[in-house]
Each structure stands twice: as structure tokens, then as C-alpha cells.
């Protein structure tokens, strides 16, 4: 079963078409990077996948269900792009809040919180209020809340923003570890190098439409930042047609 299936999904806000006939599948247990420039429709797609609103056209299923239903969202972990959390709580209270919202019992929350606080490296700052956290620390708290209820699908919106190099490595390791445990990871990013390092597949979005989707292993490996090259060609315009043709043979191409 596919973890996520989007079929000709469209969403418009007034005259602006944020997502335009997007078809994409995310296989279970894979890491898929969702790339695109600002305003390409990445966050709108993520919001539809989380059930914040329904698409205007097309169909969308997440883990075989409707994300607007709480039962489906129970299997989804989400980390937002801007990791601002309640400034008057500490990370334990934050996780207790989100654990409660997931319907977890107090012992379950306590056990999962302590494990995750340790895992994301916030053990020393566990009792400090979040308003005293740096951006990187808030990102760590964000990933901890996303993983709290052990979801099958993890949706991360710009997860590497604000992380220092060490935290990036730890975060990358964590994502790879999640894949090893059979979890599906979907993340939007501007960080092409990170996507190239950890993704199984990458999808590139332009003006709400999918312009390229393929395996990273097909394009990487010659040390010349091939993903960046593809990204620029797909979004650049001038050479777009020929780039698509040359890549069509080894990758899934949609426009």
C-alpha cells in the first residue's frame, strides 16, 4: 500500500492556483524530498495531506484514509516549518500537551517524552521554558513532538532550517533510523544537499505542478551535485524541455 496518494489534486485561493493537478505517490518506508522554490505549493500540499483543508479537485489519501479524520492523523507526525511553540511551557510540558492531544496516557507520555528528549539532545534543557530556547533547540523540540506518538508517516516542513552542522548530522541520522524502522518520511526543503544525502526519491514542484519526480540514486553519484543541476533545469525554464526529455528515460516524469 502507498503511504500517500495524491491524484490530480488542485487547490486555489481566490484567483491564485496554489496546487495544480498534482499527482504523486509516496511509498511506505521511503524518504521522499519535496523540493521547489518559495510559493511553489509545497506547504499547501502538506496542509492538504494533514487535513487542514480539502482539495478543490482530485483525491488524496494518507495511509489509506482521509487526513481530515482524526483516526488517520493518529498515524501522522508533523513538524511545522516555523517551530514556534508555547513560550511559557518547558519541553516536558509541551510533550505532555501533545501526548494528551494524541490520547496517550500519562505513563506513556512520560516514557516517550524522556526517551525523545534524550534522543534529540534536550535533556539538559528539559526544565527550561521554551522562550529561552534557540531556533535550533525549538527545531529539536519540534521533531520530538512529531515523533511522540510513534507515527507511521512523518511530514516535515523545512526541517533543516536553523540547525547547526552537528544538529543537522544528528537529524539526518534520526531520519535514516526512522526509515530503518519502516517509517515513511516526507519532507519539504530548500536544502538540495540534504535531500540528495538522505532521500530515496525527490519530487520537484513548480507553480503548483510536479515537474520532476525520480530516484536520487539515478542522478547522484558523480559528485557534481546532480540534483542541483536537475533542480535548476526544471525550474529555470530555458533548458527545461530538453532536461525533461533526457531524464524521462530513467525517471518518472510528470508535468
Amino acid at each position, binding site marked *: 500500500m502507498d503511504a500517500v496518494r495524491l491524484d490530480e489534486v488542485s487547490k486555489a*485561493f481566490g484567483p491564485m492556483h496554489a496546487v495544480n493537478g498534482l499527482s504523486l505517490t509516496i511509498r511506505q518506508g521511503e524518504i521522499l524530498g519535496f523540493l521547489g522554490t518559495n510559493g511553489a505549493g509545497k506547504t499547501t500540499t502538506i*496542509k492538504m495531506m*494533514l*487535513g*487542514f*483543508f480539502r482539495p478543490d479537485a482530485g483525491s488524496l489519501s494518507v495511509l489509506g484514509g482521509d487526513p481530515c479524520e*482524526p*483516526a*488517520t*492523523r*493518529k498515524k*501522522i507526525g*508533523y*513538524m*511545522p516549518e*516555523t517551530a*514556534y*511553540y*508555547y513560550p*511559557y*511551557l518547558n519541553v516536558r*510540558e509541551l510533550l*505532555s*500537551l*501533545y*501526548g*494528551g*492531544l*494524541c*490520547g*496517550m*496516557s500519562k505513563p506513556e507520555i512520560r516514557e516517550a517524552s524522556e526517551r525523545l528528549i534524550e534522543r534529540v539532545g534536550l535533556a539538559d534543557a528539559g526544565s527550561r*521554558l521554551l522562550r529561552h530556547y534557540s531556533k535550533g533547540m525549538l527545531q529539536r523540540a*519540534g521533531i520530538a*513532538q*512529531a515523533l511522540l506518538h510513534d507515527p507511521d508517516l512523518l*511530514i516535515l516542513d523545512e526541517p533543516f532550517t536553523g540547525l547547526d552542522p552537528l544538529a543537522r548530522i544528528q537529524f539526518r541520522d534520526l531520519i535514516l533510523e526512522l526509515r530503518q524502522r519502516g517509517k515513511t518520511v516526507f519532507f519539504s526543503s530548500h536544502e538540495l544537499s540534504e535531500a540528495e544525502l538522505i532521500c530515496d526519491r525527490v519530487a520537484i514542484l513548480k507553480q503548483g505542478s510536479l515537474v520532476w519526480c525520480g530516484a536520487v540514486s539515478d542522478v547522484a553519484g558523480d559528485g557534481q551535485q546532480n540534483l542541483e543541476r536537475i533542480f535548476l533545469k526544471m525550474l529555470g525554464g530555458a533548458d527545461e524541455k530538453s532536461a525533461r526529455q533526457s531524464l524521462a528515460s530513467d525517471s518518472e516524469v510528470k508535468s
Partner: protein
Amino acid sequence: MSVRVRQIQALARLAVLELYRRKDLIVVFVLSAVVLLPLALLTPFGVAGAGRYMNEMALLLVWLFSLVIGLGVSARLFPPEFESRTIYPMLAKPVARGTILVGKYLGALAASVSALTVFYLAYGFMVGARQGVWFPAVFVQAFILHIGFLVVVTALGLAGSLLLTPSANLTMCGLSVIGMLFFGQRLPSLAAAQPLPGRMVLTLIHWFGPHVEFFDLRQRVVHEWPAIGWGVCGVVLVYAAGYAAVCLAVASLAFRNKRF
């Protein structure tokens, strides 16, 4: 414990924690102590009977502070969530929007009632120490009906926070509550004395406005009049629950249709 109860509990706890950590409430507590303590100790103009005047002042302040806290907490439940985008991870959790609304409302109510309890205890001890009358039945009724007042005010503030901008919400709710508190009883006679457009407006306000004056037993407490019937008390509380339910239904509609 059911999942929904856990969710509501978590949300309510958030509202209470935020209120106390934000320290706004501490300021109100200190302010009330500064005002109430001298009232407890003073015998104005050397006249023992003038203590009633002091009690009236103190109760008016308790009402004012409770309105500020009730409205302040409820009006701030959602706008900061939208502004700082903390609403996204919350909506991404397996929780229905209706549950979020109810949890936040109960949290705001719990926080406001906890502050109200402190005010009433302070007032009760102040009057008891001066007059030797400790927590009479009418005082208990005044406290219970004041909770009913907060039931209405927090629901009104919450609904307004989803329909209006924060400043417009505070202004509208504050004006309507204070207006009804002082003129609510007189609205029918005021309406009768007006020409048609004015009469219609006042009649509409009379029917749809929050009749917070129903909850006001200040005069009875100050003048040590007998307690009202508990049945009347119950009817007024049913009115509070009904009014709050309507406000929450409106808020629920607005929250369901809100685009994030």
C-alpha cells in the same frame, strides 16, 4: 479515561499554565491585595456603618478584575495560536476541532474561576474580620452566580476571538458586558420610550445580549439581605449554560470554516 477527556484535559491545562506563567494574573492579585487590604483595615470617616460603602467598592473591584481576567484569557486563546502558528501542530494531532474549542474554553473558565476564588476568599475574610460574619448563604450564592457570569463572559470572548480582531473583540465584549451589567434590567422600559428604529435595536439587544445583570448579587451581599431561592439560582445558571452553548456553537462554526 477516554481519549477525548485526555485531550480536553491537556488543552485546559495549557490555558491555566499560560495564564499563571504569563504573570498578568500576579499583577491583578497584587493590585487587588493593595486595594482590598486597606479596605479591610479602614473605618472610613470613623463611622462603623460606612463599612458597607467599602464592601461595595471591594465587590465592584472584584467584578471588574474578574471581567478583565475572563475576557483577557478567553480572547487570547486563539489569536496567539494563529499568529505564532502553534495551531498547525495542534491541528495535525488526532484531535477534532470541536474538542480543541471545548478544551480551550474549559481551560479559560478554570483559570478565571481559580482567580475569582482567590478574590472571593480575600473579600470573605476581609468582611468576616471586620464584621464578624463569615461567608453567609447570600455570599456563597453571589460566588456561584459570579461563576455563571464567567461562564458567559469566557464563551463570549472565545467566540469573538474567532470572528473579530483581538482589539475589536475586547472592545465589543467589554462594552456589551458592562453595558448589560448597568442597563440590562432597564432595556425594556428604555425601548418603550424610544421611536421605532431605536426601539427595535434596544429590543434586539434585550433578546440577544448577554444578561449578565442576572448574576449580580452585590447589593444583597453588601446590605446583608436574605439569600435568593436556590431554584432561581439554578435557573440563572441554566441561562448561563445556554448562552455559553450558543456562543460555543457560533465559535465552532467559525473555527470549522477557518482556513489555515
